[in-house]
Structure formats: C-alpha cells, structure tokens
C-alpha cells in the first residue's frame, strides 16, 4: 500500500471560496463554496460527497480551472491551476460521456492527442493502448452511439487518460448508469487507477460508491458549500466484490452517512437555498 500521507501533494486548496452572482435582479449572491482547505497527495483516490447543491461539482471545476475562485488559491503540482490546465495536467470525465458522434470511438480517444499535436501514428497507437486498458480494443471502429452507456463512459475514461494526466477529475461519471453496470465500472476504475497510478478526484452522491473506491472521502454540506468531515478509508488497498461485504466497509458507510446527516443539521430555508444553488450549478 502506498503511504499517501508521505507522497507529494498534487492539489492544495487554501481558503477557497466561490460565490455566484445573482442571475435575476433581486435574488441574493449564492455562496457555493466557503473556506475550503484541502491537500490531495499523489496517487490518492479522493471522493467528494454531499447533498445536491453543496458545491462538490463546483469544487471539482475550481480544481480543474474550469471556473475561477472568488477567494483563495488552488495549487496543482506546485503551480496555479490555470498553468496546470495549460500544461494538460487534467483528464476530465463528466456524467454524460460527451463523445462526438462524428468521430469513431478511436478518433474520440485521439481528440486530446490531436489538440496537443501528437503525430498521427503515435496518436493511433496511444488511443489503441487506452482502449485496450478499458477493454474496448474490439470497438475502435464503432461509432459512439453504437455502444451501451457503460461502454461509452469507458471510452470517455480512455480519452481522459490519453494524455497521461497527473489528475483524473470525474464528475459523477457513473451517475447515469444502472446499479449493476455501475458496480462493474467501479471495479474497472479501481483496476485502471492501480495500473496508471493517477491521482483521482471523484464527485459522487452515492455513499457506497465513495467508500468502495476512495482512500479518503470528503464529506460536504450545503449553504454555503464547505467540508464538514474527511473520512479516511482504511479498507484493504486491493478491493474486489468481497470488499463490499466486509464489516469495516459497512462501518465506514455508516460513518459517511452520519457525517452527511450532521452536515444537513441546519433547519430553515435549506430546501430553498439548495434549489437556487442547483439551478446555478446545472
């Protein structure tokens, strides 16, 4: 097992806040994130979990420099997030596969390599290797719409890994899949994580998924979005179907669930605020 506490920090967030301007006159500024401090080390698998509107996707976007912070600093590989994005340190996977219908599966995976100017031969070889990694080597010439939802998401993962990114950012990547496919994709992702050694930051609203996959689970609460607790997942490093039956697994699931409930504790206009924040992050 890698000692994550000792490995180099990859992502350092300090005092990160993010507020959205009111979209309609009269509505108030929405505080999406407030006072976030977090360090993620090389090779970690960190999940962000929390209720809708807690800013977990916003936090992911802030790390990936897809949205600017209002306050605080984001340091990735020792440089500002914007620089890290320009250096192509990120691989991004969304809830929707976002594959392009006008490209074959192979050409979809080649897209980031085209943008970075990798020569055609090398591009094809690299894309093939990535598709092999996600076990879709037989589908290189298919069109995206000919694949099932789980397969499409595997193509998206292959594409995200094509540039060998330091950090894989995943925004509820399996949220649209059925439970069976989702569990299989979880195992698949762990296998890929093990083989590539990439740092993974994973947004989910599934407690079992977060516990099963992660080395650490970051529990967030809404209004304003902040970290309420970080749960260290001390399950065996190598996880399989039986991990889900370990007593320790259930204890950790319960711990995360309780942390989530504590974060929800505030009474009052929580529902209203959540709807507003969701509207903005959508």
């Amino acid at each position, binding site marked *: 097992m890698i000692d994550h506490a000792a490995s180099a920090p990859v992502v350092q967030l300090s005092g990160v806040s993010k507020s959205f301007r009111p979209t309609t006159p009269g509505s108030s500024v929405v505080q999406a994130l407030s006072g976030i401090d977090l360090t993620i080390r090389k090779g970690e698998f960190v999940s962000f979990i929390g209720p809708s509107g807690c800013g977990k996707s916003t936090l992911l976007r802030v790390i990936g420099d897809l949205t600017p912070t209002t306050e605080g600093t984001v340091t990735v590989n020792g440089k500002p997030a914007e620089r890290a994005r320009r*250096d192509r340190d990120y691989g991004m996977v969304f809830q929707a596969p976002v594959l392009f*219908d006008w490209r074959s599966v192979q050409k979809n995976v080649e897209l980031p390599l085209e943008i970075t100017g990798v020569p055609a031969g090398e591009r094809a070889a690299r894309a093939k290797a990535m598709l092999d990694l996600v076990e879709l080597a037989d589908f290189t010439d298919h069109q995206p*719409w000919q694949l099932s939802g789980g*397969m499409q998401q595997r193509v998206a993962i292959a594409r995200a890994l094509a540039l060998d990114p330091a950090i894989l950012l995943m925004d509820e990547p399996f949220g649209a899949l059925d439970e069976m496919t989702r569990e299989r994709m979880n195992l698949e992702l762990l296998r890929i994580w093990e083989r590539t050694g990439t740092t993974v930051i994973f947004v989910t609203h599934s407690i079992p998924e977060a516990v099963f996959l992660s080395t650490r689970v970051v529990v967030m609460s809404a209004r304003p979005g902040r970290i309420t607790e970080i749960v260290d997942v001390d399950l065996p490093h190598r996880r399989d179907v039986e991990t889900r039956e370990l007593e320790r697994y259930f204890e950790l699931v319960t711990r995360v669930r309780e942390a989530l409930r504590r974060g929800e504790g505030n009474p009052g206009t929580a529902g209203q605020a959540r709807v507003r924040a969701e509207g903005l992050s959508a």
Partner: protein
Amino acid sequence: MTDVAPAAQVLRGPSILDRVREWIPAAVLFVGILTAWELAVRVFSIQQFILPRPLAILDQWNLHGTELTAAASYTLVEVLMGLAIGVIGGLVVGVATARFAGFRDAIMPFAVAVNSIPIIAFAPVFNNLFGLDKPLSKAMVAAALCFFPVMINTVRGLLSAPAPAIELMRSYAAPDREIFLKVRVPAAVPYVFTALRVSATLATIGAVIGEYFGAPKISLGQYIVTYTSYLNFERAWAAIVYACAMGIGLYVLVVIAERVLAPWAADRSLSAG
C-alpha cells in the same frame, strides 16, 4: 468486460432490397393517384383548361420537349445562382453572428422576424432593382429566401454544442480555433443541412415566382404564364412538372450530400424532411 451493445447489431442498417421495399407503398400510391386522375378526367369529361389529363401532359414532352428543357435550364441557372448567393451569404453571416455575442443579440431577433415575413412579396421590387430581364433579379429572390434559414440554422448549430463538450475542450487547453473546428462546426453540420433542404425548395419557388412578374420568354415562369393565358393548360402543366422535378431533384441532391458528408445525422432526412 462483457456488457453487450444491442445497438451494434443495427450497425449495418437496412439492405438495398429493404430500402426498395420501403418505397413500394409510396410508389404504388403515386401511380394510383395518376391513374385515378387520368380516369376521372376521362369519365367526367373535365375540360383541359380545368384539369388536363396526365397522359396529355406527358405528351407535351414529346411535342415541345426541347423548348421545355431550354426553359427549365434557364430557370435552373437562376436557382443555382440564388442558392449559391443565399447559402454562402447565410453561412458567412451565420458564422460571424455566432462568433460575436454582441452582434448576435442585435441581429438574431431581426433575422427571426424577417424569416417569418413573406419575402416572396419583394419579387417585383427585385425585378426593378436587378433588371427585369436579368437572371440575377430572380436569383436574388431565391437568395433572399434561402439566406435567413441558412443563417439562423448556422447560428443555432454553432451554438448547439453542449456545455460539457466545451468544458472538455477547455480542460485540454484547446485554443478557440480548435473548439470551433472540432466541436462547433461538426455540431452545426446537421442544422445547416436542414436549412439546405428547405433552401433547395425555396430557391426553386423564388426563381419561378420571380419570373411570373417578368422575365425572358424562355424562362419556365414565363412559359407557364404564357400558356396559361392562351388557355393551353396541358403545355403550362408540362412546365409545372419541370419546376416540380427541379425542386425535388435539388432536395434529393442535398439529402445525398448529407448522407455522404454527415452520416451521423442523416438518418431521418427523407422521412422527416
């Protein structure tokens, strides 16, 4: 992994024989209507200036084929000129409109409004403007009709790429030019083809109607006007059939081009037009 893709089986699509079979009902209906028409005119002794028989119209092709083909060619040149001007203009202005948000806010409501007025009403004005006996005046009517659908659909298509697709490109630090060429343009292609299909029909209408208000005798529009006034409806109808064939032919060409250039989007084009 073994999750199967049921869609993979539809990959090859229907065979040519299946395609032919698909068209049988339409073909039967078409022949049936022509037969019923022919019989109705004979049985009820309808005068030719009210409704000529299909076979009598077909006969005009034997009697005046050369003349009709010459008239159709003259009009076809106007249609193609108009399509070229309208489509290229629509594409250029559409790209510029999509590119500059300020320009877009100013021009889009105007474009949508103009698109819903009867532009064809300007046909006599265009005749004065660009020369009654010049093909350009009819081409400009056709161009004006095509311009707005092409422009509006170009803008909508270029802006149709979903937000995550743009975010994905940004996560690769892709320059704007790459986002435009690799995401926005391909996403716009099906929208543009939809506009082109409409334009193929509109350009034909524009040219023929433009000719009604004055054009050389050799044009299809004037041919129809002339023989209608002579009450020679069989001959007028023959010219109308030519105009119909032109519209349908151009439409089919656009559909074929779409299947070749944008196969990912072309599946519904003939049925849903």
